[in-house]
């Protein structure tokens, strides 16, 4: 077992983990942060996406021991003081989710995308979300939501 200390959704969490423990399993099983779901076992789907030090990462492809000292944001920690992030609001407004299983990853990947590119074109949004699969929406409304959130965050 290896000891790790990680700030998750604003709280410093300590844990003893096996070297092989995946970050997503540590979040879900040990910390009970089940808002981050698992959709595949080949790192294709992106459902488990979280922010590690502000950058999106698939938490099924990261070992828990690798995030020692890092700051992680999951979907459960994205809203600030009860105020939803503009991406969360836009997903609701644009009906950018149906079953909601891809949604945590899709939202956090979108947050990362917008931190890099404040005014993405449709094509840039589509390429930015290429690593996150959705089976319900056909992506149409997700793309609309990200564009709406971008405008909101630019103050338009």
């Amino acid at each position: 077992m290896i000891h790790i200390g990680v700030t998750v959704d604003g709280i410093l969490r300590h844990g003893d983990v096996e070297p092989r423990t995946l970050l997503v399993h540590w979040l879900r099983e040990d910390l009970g942060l089940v808002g981050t779901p698992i959709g595949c076992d080949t790192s294709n789907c992106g459902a488990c996406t979280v922010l590690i030090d502000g950058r999106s990462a698939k938490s099924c492809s990261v070992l828990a021991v690798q995030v020692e000292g890092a700051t992680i944001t999951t979907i459960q920690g994205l809203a600030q003081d009860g105020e939803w992030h503009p991406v969360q609001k836009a997903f609701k407004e644009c009906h950018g989710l149906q079953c909601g299983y891809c949604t945590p990853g899709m939202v956090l990947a979108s947050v990362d995308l917008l931190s890099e590119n404040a005014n993405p074109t449709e094509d840039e949004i589509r390429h930015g979300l290429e690593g996150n699969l959705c089976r319900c929406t056909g992506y149409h409304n997700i793309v609309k939501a990200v564009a709406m959130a971008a405008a909101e965050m630019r103050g338009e």
Partner: protein
Amino acid sequence: MTETVERTGGPAIGRPIRRKEDARLLTGRTNWTDNIQLPGTLYMSLLRCPMAHAKIINIDTSAALAAEGVVAVYTGKDFPELPGSTCVWPVTDEIVMSHFPAICLDEVKFGGDVVAVVLATEKYLSVDALDLIDVDYEPLPAVVDMEDALKPGSPLVHSDKGTNECYVAKMPCGDYEAATVKADRVVKRRFINQRLIPSPMEPRAVVAAPMGMSDEITIWTSTQIPHVLRVLLALLTGIPENNLRVVAPDVGGGFGAKLQINREEVLAVVLAQKLGRPIKWTETRSEHMVGTHHGRDQIQDIEMAVMNDGTLVGMKVDLLADMGAYLQIITPGTPLLGMFMYSGIYKMEALDFTCTGVYTTKTPTDAYRGAGRPEATYAIERIMDEVAFELGIEPLELRKKNWIKHEEFPYTQIAGLTYDTGNYEAATARALELFGYDELRAEQAERRAAGGPVQLGIGISTFTEMCGLAPSRTLGALKYVAGGWEHCTIRALPTGKIELITGTSPHGQGHETAWSQIASDIIGVPVEDIEVVHGDTGRAPYGMDTYGSRSLAVGGQAIKLAGERLVEKARIIAAHQLEVSPDDVEFAHGTYSVKGDPEKSTTIQAIAFEAFTAHNLPDGVEPTLSGESTVDPMDFSYPHGTHLAAMEVDTETGQVTLRKYVCVDDCGVQINPLIVEGQVHGGLAQGIAQALFEGALYDAEGNLLTGNMGDYLLPSAVDLPSFITDRTVTPSTTHPLGTKGIGEAGAIASTPAIINGVVDAIRHLGVNDVFMPASPQNVWRAIQTAQNGGAA
């Protein structure tokens, strides 16, 4: 931007209200089955065989049993009789049924079949122990190709049955032979509707736990069918039904994949009872690819007898349908769900339908979004383009010539269904306008003349489908062993809040919002005051669940009736309170008032409290205020639409690009247009994915080559365009709300539109078909084959 706040100032039906469900889904407060963590849980892992067909000679579990954390290991010998699934739709009297074991006893019949079960105290330890089980297999020949499987001397999937032919179902309508005599010509094609893997984003999962209350076992499972599952689990395990409670918590998509009774559910229940501890199993994605049923997989031999002027006379449909290794819940019935739809929206004098079900050593097939109707729609819409080509008629003109005209409804089509309403002219006119059809045809001609490598094709699909499974008598006549009704109870609680208990079981469709909208209009309370309870046989005891675009089409009727009954009971109490006759009380927007004296009034919330205290109820009126209804639908409903695809094909590389997609659907009255729109988008993505990207591939030994998400191509955002959509509204007359159903329309309509467009782009090269998915490889091959003198 501020969050949209929805108020119910006017009618709720028809408004694009933002979904109630979204708050928990967007903040990670969702209750997926895999989130459920009970003390003392044992984690179940399944050892799946690595080959398609083999005898089990020996299984050595001793090392696994000795491993850290392992509590038990079971093989087929421990449960030799226990079924893992069952078929509730034996489609013919002569059907060859099969036994699907919970754990294989002496033979495995598809790659992924289960040979051993491990229970351990931790998830990782459970999976670790699988590697310690030693299985000695003797390989048997795989049965992969359906046509080979039917040849004499073929290896058998079930050697005791003496045949791989599962059933032959026939439905002759009219006289097809006479049609061929009358017709000027018969156009014949073979279409392949390839095998697909449904792939909802949430893999399957189950938790079964003895709950200490009497002998109850609670089963949380990622299912579309908690109610049906409860009955089947009781029948398969022998545990009394009244000791089983099935809960479908938040379910992350289904698309038919979760319309099933699975061996993992049976095993979890049996082992929870046996050991007295919670049993938990969560599928990995790679397990999903082999262990959860697949969809489609038909060879379609289609003939269309036509007059030279384009008039359709008769159609012959001869299907081979791959059952896979075993029959699951509706495996044999799935191709027959399309049986009535092969004539589509067209008039003809004969339809001769035959379907042969075939066993192979592959994952069982079953319902996948549309279930039989996408296959039927593909066949009719593809053959229409082929007929148009052979006769030299514009494909849209051929459709117009043969479709049922709007003034001809209700129309009883050749398979005996009566389409209640429709307006194909209106949907088509709107779609053509949005698409810019004439301009694109002109561009196509220019490109054709210029002879560049990238050619343009236009694909058309003017489809209909049948929604709302189903009138129970109809299901009985088709040998389905259950009914097709739906239930709703609406309870007005003492505090004025409303509990709407539905038998439908959503997994992304937004029932919590849409059902609230319906009830809001009927009982006059705000949408936000209505809580929709679903997916729990403990809280919502009656239901037939969600599949086949039935939830609104059938369940919506029950909501309306239940609401009206509640309003009528409350009217009697209100009249008593207002000291007038019930006939003198008017009801509007949640308020009962005396006719001619509107100042004298009371609210439905006040009546709910009166019904609770029961201090002053009229004689003969029972306390509490609720209304309930169980509705058996009078008929199916028939949404329709016109879908148009502009496809660019690089004739040198075979690369296909979807440039523009327009669809105009008619699903009757829309409860929530935002949700309707979302359903259309998602359906389009899946139908387009069948046409362009997806396909389960097996090698000659029966190994699945597309066994994970890296190898099975689910489209991402870059693979799809934004869609241009609109609706026409032709209300259904078989449904009291005028609605029809929209869950499967996009998936049904889009596949032939795409392939028709691809073929249209390269028709001049001699191509008259492209195998799906229309990958660069398949398109390039089609072109090469045609150029080398053979039809593709």
